[in-house]
């Protein structure tokens, strides 16, 4: 298979006596969705935060295209190609979807700070923003404050913002959270398409979606990866059943 784009080596992080992440290693290859599953408090969010640069690991390393991200601040990791979505939609509430996309495109362009050109007439922003709104079915609701669009639309916008950054790797923290069945199905097929362009590290609780989407799964329990493999391998793993699937929904 293709070479690894994102490599995580022995990443650890403790909060006091709690080892939230314990020697976690995984790889993400081009064209794949690698799902990270595990019960609540297993350390999934901590791992995502470390990858995004929001918290520093105690030890271990993260390589993006073979280059270490150690000490690189969160906003610079985005320029190196690491984009993320949040479990709870993180949008600019007073901005419309279009303006939210302007912001993302400014970040993506690498030269974010113009002082004299109006953003609303800046074709370097308006054109790609219109294309993204179209792609994510947000055109009809593009110009009302993002605080007033529906939950499902905000989830779409959240993904659109990450895609606008043209990332090398996409980290998605529970993109299906709070979505209805229809929304989940729509997002599932969207991610299926998206993974051709950019590999995705997916943290998700919706098992149906995970097994439909993931090429590789890793199971995180108490900060440790107890199993890693294809959907079929994980389904049949005894350890996983005991630790996780046996207690929850499947």
């Amino acid at each position, binding site marked *: 298979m293709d070479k690894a784009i994102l490599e995580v080596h022995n990443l650890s992080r403790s909060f006091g006596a709690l080892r939230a992440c314990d020697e976690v290693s995984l790889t993400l290859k081009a064209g794949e969705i690698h799902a990270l599953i595990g019960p609540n408090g297993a350390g999934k969010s901590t791992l995502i935060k470390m990858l995004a640069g*929001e918290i520093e690991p105690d030890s271990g390393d993260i390589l993006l295209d073979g280059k270490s991200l150690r000490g690189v601040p969160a906003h610079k990791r985005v320029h190196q190609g690491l*984009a993320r979505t949040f479990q709870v939609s993180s949008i600019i509430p007073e*901005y419309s979807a279009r303006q939210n996309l302007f*912001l*993302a495109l400014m970040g993506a362009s690498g030269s974010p*700070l113009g002082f004299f050109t109006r953003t609303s007439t800046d074709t370097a922003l308006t054109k790609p923003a219109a294309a993204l709104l179209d792609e994510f079915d947000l055109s009809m609701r593009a110009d009302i404050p993002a605080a007033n669009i529906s939950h499902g639309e905000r989830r779409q916008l959240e993904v659109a913002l990450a895609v606008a950054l043209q990332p090398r790797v996409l980290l998605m923290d529970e993109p299906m959270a709070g979505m209805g069945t229809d929304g989940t199905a729509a997002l599932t097929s969207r991610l299926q398409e998206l993974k051709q362009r950019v590999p995705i590290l997916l943290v998700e609780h919706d098992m149906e979606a995970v097994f439909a989407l993931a090429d590789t799964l890793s199971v995180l329990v108490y900060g440790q990866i107890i199993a890693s493999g294809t959907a079929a391998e994980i389904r049949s793993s005894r350890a996983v059943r005991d630790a996780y699937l046996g207690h929850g929904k499947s």
Partner: protein
Amino acid sequence: MRRETLFNFTLAGGLLGLAIVAWFVDEPFVITLLTKVFIFAIAGTGLNLALGNGGLVSLGHAAFFGIGGYAMAILASHAQSFEPMVIGPLTFDGTKSMPVIWLVAILASAFAALLIGLLSLRTSGVYFIMITLAFAQMIYYFAISWPAYGGEDGISIYVRNNFPGLNTLDPIQFFGLIALLLVIVLWLSSTLVRSRFGVALDATRQNAQRVTSVGLSPFTIRLIAFVISGAITGLAGALYADLNRFVSPSMLSWQVSGEIMVFVILGGVARLFGPLAGAALFIGMEHYLGGISEFWQFWLGLLLLIVVLWGRGGLLGVVAGERRHG
């Protein structure tokens, strides 16, 4: 036309008209009062960029106002006493030229804002308020104990500084100059707010996490805003010193920071003409209520209370009939 735009034109037109009427009926005091309003409006517009658009509640803008004032006084005092300023091996004659003084005031206050911003923008909320206040107080006490430039007594400049082609001692000409500067500052402010930088700044106020996650540094954006904000307020300080032909540490006192903040809140946070409306109302009340009662500040306090409790968009918010963030 939107009601707010209409109000803005009425307000600016009304104040300009008042100045012209005062000029015709020979009431220089009214012109001077209006000049003061416009200078405070410039100072408030500076603060509004940080406070309104950036959500940075600075209680230390007197530092920049005072630094602008002292930049003017130091340059002009050397020029009027014909004693060159000596900095190491270099000597300067000082200057009475307004454009040069403005440039120095802007650069000096921008530099101060850079240093203060670098340290204080690592904090937020109440801590940011306190640390900006602390820096301003440090500069205030430094000015008091600096005998070379008047210490507690301040510095008097006998003749107002020069601007090419104008008699700046004529109140209406000086007023016209200040009005022109206010227009430039308002234009700059409205341009910035609509630019990429302005979009990023307002986004940082609303959700810094999102700004980081699209690859922008909230700290850098806030720092740039703070520097521009300080520079504009510094320019206002130089103008205020020139209006009074006098500078003293009281320009650096925390009450001045509070007053500038009151202009912004009274007029309307994050609204272009908010500081002008607020300054006009404040100076108007100070003058006319001050003539009626010694306790005019009681009525100001009451008004401020009403604005904060019910009209959180300030005077302009009430006029526009819509609420922005508060």
